[in-house]
């Protein structure tokens, strides 16, 4: 057995400006943790032959995309996979520059952790502020500020602390950031990447990989309020099998909290009440299930439930409404225009929506809102108000990434044009005392 212990999965993305050493860093992580694939090794050999002397350039490992850049092809998100005996890793590699915001939002949306690279010689530049802002906007639970190229500043602790201070001046304004770690390193030489550096005796923390292997991610999912967007109604429709004849399961992925057999629940938006009769995973009923498991629930009463409904517990009720405020990242060449209709996909439901107003565009270098811009263009972040044809059952994005997020889809072309993060509801949904299960 290669893996005696359960192995967790950590998803991270890397952000940095051109030449901060992002490709070198990913190459170094893959190389030093012995995760090279054949084709990557071949690519390295080839480039080593070209540059002569067999000197290997680690940046080439991840630079399938650099070639694309040279050919003028749109830069996109690529995913890479590696493993250590303790964890598996999925890296979202977003080398875009022009389209950086859009790609970073895509790559970071599923990340537990973001690595923000800084060139130690340059310190905090505008890009560093942007990347950190975006990581905070997306609610990424863990951030690593990788102060790279420490070899070029003589491994100076003073320089490292200076950069940390610069960050700490603006970090308090990004109040969603909970866990920020600073690591001095040299991606080129491998210092503090996989192996601790001999050059930084003044640094007591872990090397990057050690941190990635141990950072506590068990509570990255919202475990405090049960949310179950109904995804698919499971009706076997089998007239001959007595057990299956009446089976009516509600399948979906738990988007928050836990659910137990016997627990009272409410179906929203209808407000119908019932309780959990059975929780099915594959071929077996279980006593409880938790986020983000995919399960099938059976309710005690035969209430009307369909895809797009949300089943919730009685504690920590969500918001419900059709007039919503959200921050959006605009992702399409055609700009956002107030008054235009889109499809909005939120959890498992798609509804028509109209943007009623564009309240502000956020300057992501100063973090300041600029009120009432005429439009949002690609890579802009803005605050909008939106009206949906049917009420959404939702949480604020900062409370729950799964029930607080949506995408906008352009009608006709079906292009995905925006990623949206909902503002927390003003009040939780009011339950009417008359809402009982039939």
């Amino acid at each position, binding site marked *: 057995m*290669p*893996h005696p212990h359960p*192995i*967790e*999965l950590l998803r991270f993305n890397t952000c940095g400006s051109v030449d901060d050493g992002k490709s070198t860093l990913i190459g170094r992580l893959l190389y030093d943790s*012995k*995760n090279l*694939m*054949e*084709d990557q*090794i*071949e690519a390295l*050999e080839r480039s080593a032959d070209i540059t002569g002397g067999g000197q290997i350039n680690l940046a080439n490992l991840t630079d*399938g995309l650099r070639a694309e850049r040279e050919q003028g*092809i*749109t830069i*996109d*998100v*690529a*995913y*890479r*996979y590696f*493993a250590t005996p303790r*964890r*598996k890793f999925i890296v979202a590699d977003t080398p875009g520059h022009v389209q950086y915001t859009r790609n970073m*939002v*895509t790559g970071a*949306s*599923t990340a537990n952790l973001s690595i923000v690279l800084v060139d130690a010689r340059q310190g905090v530049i505008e890009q560093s502020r942007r990347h950190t802002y975006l990581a905070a906007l997306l609610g990424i639970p863990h951030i690593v500020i990788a102060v790279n190229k420490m070899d070029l500043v003589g491994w100076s602790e003073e320089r490292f602390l200076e950069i940390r201070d610069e960050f700490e001046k603006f970090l308090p304004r990004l109040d969603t950031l909970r866990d920020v770690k600073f690591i001095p390193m040299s991606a080129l030489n491998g210092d503090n990447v996989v192996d601790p550096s001999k050059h930084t005796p003044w640094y007591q923390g872990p090397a990057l990989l050690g941190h990635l292997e141990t950072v506590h991610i*068990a*509570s990255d999912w919202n*475990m405090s309020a049960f949310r179950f967007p109904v*995804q*698919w109604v*499971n009706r*076997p*429709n089998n007239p001959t099998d007595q057990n*299956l004849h009446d*089976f009516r399961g509600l*399948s*979906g*992925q738990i988007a928050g909290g*836990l659910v137990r057999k016997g627990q009272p629940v409410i179906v929203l938006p209808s407000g119908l009440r019932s309780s959990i009769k059975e929780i099915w995973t*594959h*071929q077996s009923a279980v006593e409880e299930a*938790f986020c*983000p*498991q*995919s399960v099938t629930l059976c309710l005690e009463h035969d209430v009307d439930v369909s895809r797009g409904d949300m089943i919730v517990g009685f504690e920590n009720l969500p918001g419900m409404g059709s007039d919503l405020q959200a921050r959006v990242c605009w992702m399409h060449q055609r700009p956002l225009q107030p008054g235009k209709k889109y499809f909005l996909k*939120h959890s*498992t439901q798609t509804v028509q929506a109209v943007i009623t107003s564009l309240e502000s565009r956020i300057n992501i270098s100063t973090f300041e809102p600029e009120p009432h811009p005429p439009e949002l263009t690609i890579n802009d972040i803005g605050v909008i108000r939106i009206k949906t044809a049917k009420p959404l059952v939702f949480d604020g994005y900062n409370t729950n*990434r*799964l029930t607080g*997020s*949506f*995408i906008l*889809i352009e009608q006709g072309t*079906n292009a*995905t044009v925006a*990623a949206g993060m909902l503002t927390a509801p003003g009040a939780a949904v009011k339950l009417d005392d008359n809402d009982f299960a039939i």
Partner: protein
Amino acid sequence: MNSYHLDHLQYLETEAIHVMREVAAEFERPVLLFSGGKDSICLLRLAEKAFLPSDLPMPFLNIETGHEFPELLEFRDRRAAQLGAKLLVRTVDDAIAKGLAMPKPGVVSRNQLQTPALLGAIEEFHFDCCIGGARRDEEKARAKERFFSFRDGFGQWDPKNQRPEIWNLYNARVNQGENMRVFPLSNWTEMDVWEYIKREQLEVPNIYFSHTRDCFRRGGQWTPLPPDHTDTTKPDPYAGARPKPNEPIKKLVVRVRTIADMISTGMIESPAESVDDIIAEIAAARVTERGTRADDRASEAAMEDRKKAGYF
């Protein structure tokens, strides 16, 4: 608190099941591409988990090149029958007969011809979504592939203009004539696939395990000897793919690592007899200590990787 936590396979599983159910909910006529290979075997288990006790809400489709390993076809048919699924088979021969596919003169392999055959089947059955078992770790181009990969009216993928995929919110909308390829195993690695096969105790075709087979060397790999040409009323389907006099046949202990058809699959020399052996073999192939460890159970695949790693 810690017990409310998924390990990596459980996470990949819940993600894939979510994707499968989105397909069932969002598309009218989905189909699952089932070849009998290891990736699609995982897909089938995920489909069972996503939809049981209901019947699977989609048929299976396989495009045959006509050069299949008989073991694979037998396995494919048996698994589909066990699940009570409807298995549709379309062949490259049909596609050629209908003028959908044009063989290139002198090219024996029919890999390329599978694409027009697939597009023909999509049109014939009006499928709006095909679930496939591709993984992003397979090759560079795949690393950028989406879970929901949009194809235009000509079945084309436009990598420059993909829909961004954010959170777990998949945009499944297609217009008439367009369709979607969906890859629930996008985030799985080869190792994950085998670990899942082990955990779920899934049966795989026996050609994945080491066996003795007649092979000959061509194109830098061990090619399996095709079956004899018995029905002489028809032309030999393996004409051009049989060993030439200067390609001696050798009896080897081999297995397949990935399966295409008998013409395109390279057999690797390997003693791996069980799923555990295969997992150990992959582990060795990937994380070998720069060729310093002489592992006498090493397979050819491990050796190759190791040789390359030896450069460092």
